[in-house]
């Protein structure tokens, strides 16, 4: 199994940020954006291909969660914003 290339990692990162941006709730949106950014930064130096693959898999799963939850929340009209 080929390890994920730099391009794939960046593409996953962008996809996660894009989806996180869609959260209607301020707190979830800011958390998702911040957490994704910090997680990718913290793991930026990982070399071992197995670890990279595992992290990418986790990332893809989380992307799925973000997509489902964001859709759910938009449908429920949870966009009452805070100050």
């Amino acid at each position: 199994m080929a390890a994920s290339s730099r391009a794939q990692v960046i593409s996953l990162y962008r996809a996660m940020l894009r989806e996180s941006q869609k959260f209607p709730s301020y707190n979830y949106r800011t958390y998702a954006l911040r957490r994704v950014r910090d997680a990718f930064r913290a793991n930026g130096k990982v070399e071992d291909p197995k670890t990279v693959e595992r992290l990418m898999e986790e990332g893809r799963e989380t992307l799925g969660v973000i997509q489902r939850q964001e859709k759910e929340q938009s449908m429920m009209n949870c966009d009452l914003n805070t100050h």
Partner: protein
Amino acid sequence: MLSPGRTVSSRLLRPGSWLPLRLGSERTAASSLQKELIKKHELEKDELRPLYMDFQATTPMDPRVLDAMLPYQVNYYGNPHSRTHAYGWESESAMETARKQVADLIGADPREIIFTSGATESNNMAIKGVARFYQAKKHHVITTQTEHKCVLDSCRILESEGFSVTYLPVQTDGLLDLELLEASIRPDTSLVSVMTVNNEIGVKQPIKEIGKICRSKGVFFHTDAAQAIGKIPLNVSDWKIDLMSISGHKIYGPKGVGALYVRRRPRVRLEPLQNGGGQERGLRSGTVPTPLAVGLGAACSLAQQEMEYDHHRVSMLANRLVQKIMSEIPDVIMNGHPEQRYPGCVNLSFAYVEGESLLMALKDVALSSGSACTSASLEPSYVLRAIGADEDLAHSSIRFGIGRFTTEDEVDYTAEKCIQQVRRLREMSPLWEMVQEGIDLKSIKWTQH
């Protein structure tokens, strides 16, 4: 045009707000109509929701937890105790996975975790259950004055049953005096109950040392870890804890579920509070709510993963808040030990300002003074009284709760608003005027004759 009586939402329409409808797209139009109405209603109230800064009262669910729970609310709805079909098996398997996730967070064995309806039930089970089981030979229970109401109330019930209970005082920094604890343990003591992190002032008790003392004296040690779980590292073996209460909705999990850790080696026996079909080792009968248990498990496993990141962030934000407030306004006291604490629970007393008025002035921030369960009564918090806070300072305290989802902007806004309102309220206060003039308030005789 809409004719009245055609759709449910038409009853909600106010006169003059007819919205044009295209024929044939009624259903989507109805739901978007609903949305419009709700939006209008909210905007007309001209209210945006306040910032949430009350993470000790409860926490919002982490989206990842909700995601884990949903399949069990929708598709996998079987009773986990049904032995005869796949619905039961898949539900049971999810429940056991959740049990393992909870156990892993605290360093326990999955067989030692009992699912309950929350930390209140767990506390009741632990205290009443242990005391009643061993009552043939043991009649004494020890707890502290700063425990959660459910612990204090359970102890009160035990007293009415003939047990004797010692409510240990705490020092002014909120910590328990270990020598006093050791001296209070009698040969007929069955249980000591001390909470790990206090929900009002955030103080972290020396649980490791207390566990050692209790183990050496052969007394069971129960701790209410609802505010500590998932926020600070806990290990029931290292800390010699025999019983531990866990709450779901304090760690970004669902409300209505919790757990009780009951040690198996050496065995802790309990008289069950809830009898029935013998679920949960016979200690807590009743169908385990699989979706809630799955949520609790997911929340625990997430908490373990995110603990370091969250702790670092929460400490940083709490420091930011406290520094900002204390550098701008004088006479602010932080209640509780400055170091032995969980940083996310900051309890500040603002002298010469009334707590309720400050809370109302900060109406766009959701805060509390004291705990949620005592917020209905007008009395100052018993926890603050127990740490020896002055009566007037106890009335002026506000608890700021910072959590996983708090942002820097929210903290800055809260700090600024707080500073602004405290200044304004102090300006209106005659007590503040007197203090400015150098009068010592304690020297004033308030009575007229």
